[in-house]
């Protein structure tokens, strides 16, 4: 078998704390990752568990094993419904939901998040939508979602879901006027300044390039 000098760099990074430290420094609640004892209760508690590739506990192990690329490009974090089952059951009290969100945010900031992951897109749109006026514009948000894959696809989807749409209209729970003039905060400008500042501060603290808000 080969002596170390013949080994590739990827192998060298294996099972060092480099990536773990990176996560601790840059990911919300990242300092908890090292405390996982691999019991798997989070994996078994997740409602979308069957649908994702890596369970939280496995993600944590991958972080310790130095699998930076696999972790940050994984779609698993984006499957979190924020149900907090894992959090209340974790015997080590890890704030798993927050860590999953944090990893997702970090992946996005590094531009590694899986572009076509629907929840990824949805999450960005939501943030964009709610921060534009300070309040969510539900109609624009919904339509925005329908039309994100282009106009035709959007029309198709809207048509497919027309039952729901009309139902909500009838129930006065979808308001056409929102397209023209939706809810908004008076001090929009203040909110924008405040959020811009927040992102500067965070970028400063995390020593990473401030990321662009899309749209």
């Amino acid at each position: 078998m080969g002596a170390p000098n013949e080994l590739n760099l990827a192998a060298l990074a294996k099972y060092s704390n480099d990536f773990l430290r990176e996560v601790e420094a840059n990911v919300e609640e990242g300092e908890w990752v090292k405390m996982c004892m691999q019991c798997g209760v989070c994996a078994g508690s997740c409602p979308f568990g069957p649908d994702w590739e890596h369970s939280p506990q496995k993600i944590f192990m991958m972080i310790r094993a130095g699998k930076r690329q696999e972790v940050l490009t994984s779609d698993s974090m984006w499957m979190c419904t924020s149900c907090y089952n894992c959090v209340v059951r974790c015997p080590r009290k890890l704030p798993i939901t927050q860590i999953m969100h944090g990893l997702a945010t970090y992946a996005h900031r590094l531009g590694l998040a899986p572009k076509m992951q629907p929840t990824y897109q949805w999450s960005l749109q939501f943030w964009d939508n709610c921060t534009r006026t300070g309040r969510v514009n539900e109609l624009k948000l919904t339509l925005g979602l329908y039309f994100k894959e282009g106009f035709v696809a959007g029309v198709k989807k809207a048509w497919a879901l027309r039952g729901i749409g009309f139902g909500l209209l009838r129930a006065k729970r979808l308001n056409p006027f929102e397209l023209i003039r939706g809810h908004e905060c008076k001090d929009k400008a203040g909110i924008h300044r405040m959020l811009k500042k927040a992102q500067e501060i965070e970028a400063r603290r995390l020593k990473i390039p401030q990321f662009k808000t899309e749209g």
Partner: protein
Amino acid sequence: MPELVATEQTILVVGGGISGMTAALEAAECGKQVILVESSATLGGRTALLYRYFPKLCHPTCGLEINLRRIKASRNIRVYTLAEVTRIDGRSGDYTVSLKLTPRYVNASCTACGDCAKAVAATIPNPWNYGLDRITAAYLPHAMAYPQRFVIDPSIIGTPEADKAKAACRYGAVDLEMKEETLTLKAAAVIWATGWKPYDAAKIQPYGYGRFKNVITSVEFERLADPHGPTGGRIVRPSDGKEAKDVAFIQCAGSRDENHLRHCSRICCMASLKQTRFMREAFGEAAQSTIYYIDIRAIDRFEDFYKQVQADPHVRFIKSKVARIEEDRASADPVLHGVDTEGYLRYANRHDLAVLAIGMEPSVRGSAIPATLGEDSSGFLVPALDGAAIFGAGCATNALDVNRAVQSSTAAALRAIQVVNRSARAET
């Protein structure tokens, strides 16, 4: 046992389980005067409620019989049951202890003939079977009970039931006028061997103990397997009395968990491994056990036993902390949900019965130990640093198996003897 006048030479042992009995006997057999205090109606403690010990699968009552015979034969031990320490004052070599004696309503004349039990109709949940069955309110705790003397349950005092018991006793042993007494005695040293209690399984919400009939604890399972137990040794489901041939054993039920007990309770892995043998004993080839675990802690020579069980094709090991249990509405089967973390395999396993390998909670908190005696964050007794002669023994000091508990109590006995001998030398 002769009447003893406690003196500055006396060693007080609190707790009549295997640890307390051991500490008392080892000290007494060194020639020391010992007072052994037990809060329940009989000596024996938790181990008297076990069917078999790991790894030998021998019977706890066998060792209990020997220890009881040693106590009967000893001229140095005085036993108080239904007695609780309410206060300890003084210092090493010179303690004054207050004992609260709860009435048994049966005096020393009792011959354990059982006529009172025949006369009484009222029943209570059987504390010696963790309430899995009921016993008449006039009862002998269990076949090995010592003192071998009946108890009239306080719940029937002042009712006609109690009078029936009194009327039935031909030896004037039933004394309904008994009152709570307080006793003050002197002791040179105190050994605190108050043991442990099973962690409250209902607090482990995802497992539905208390909500789902067929989710029980490992200590309850022990009673099911025991011929002295509520089912006469038949392993059956609480919901429908059907034989439980496919049983799930869930490790770390309350242990190694910041939401419950922070410590590892040490015995649970071994207890479950042992209980898989009960399954084979009861159902032979039809038995199926599954152990859900994080780490199997078959420490030191127990590894041999672990290997034996691993070799049994009727026992399955899944490395997983079970996420939740759901009850099948029709069959009342517990269905376990979780993930086998060795390679990430999701499961939803149906069993006849789920047994929670329940954690060990020290029964120290709330008891009358002087402040100088610390408890650690898990509630275990820690040695006093101020030279107090109050020594922890057994599971009051750490999560221990029987063997280690006995080592610990034997050591505690010597520490107490050191104090007695010191004050004796000081006097002479």
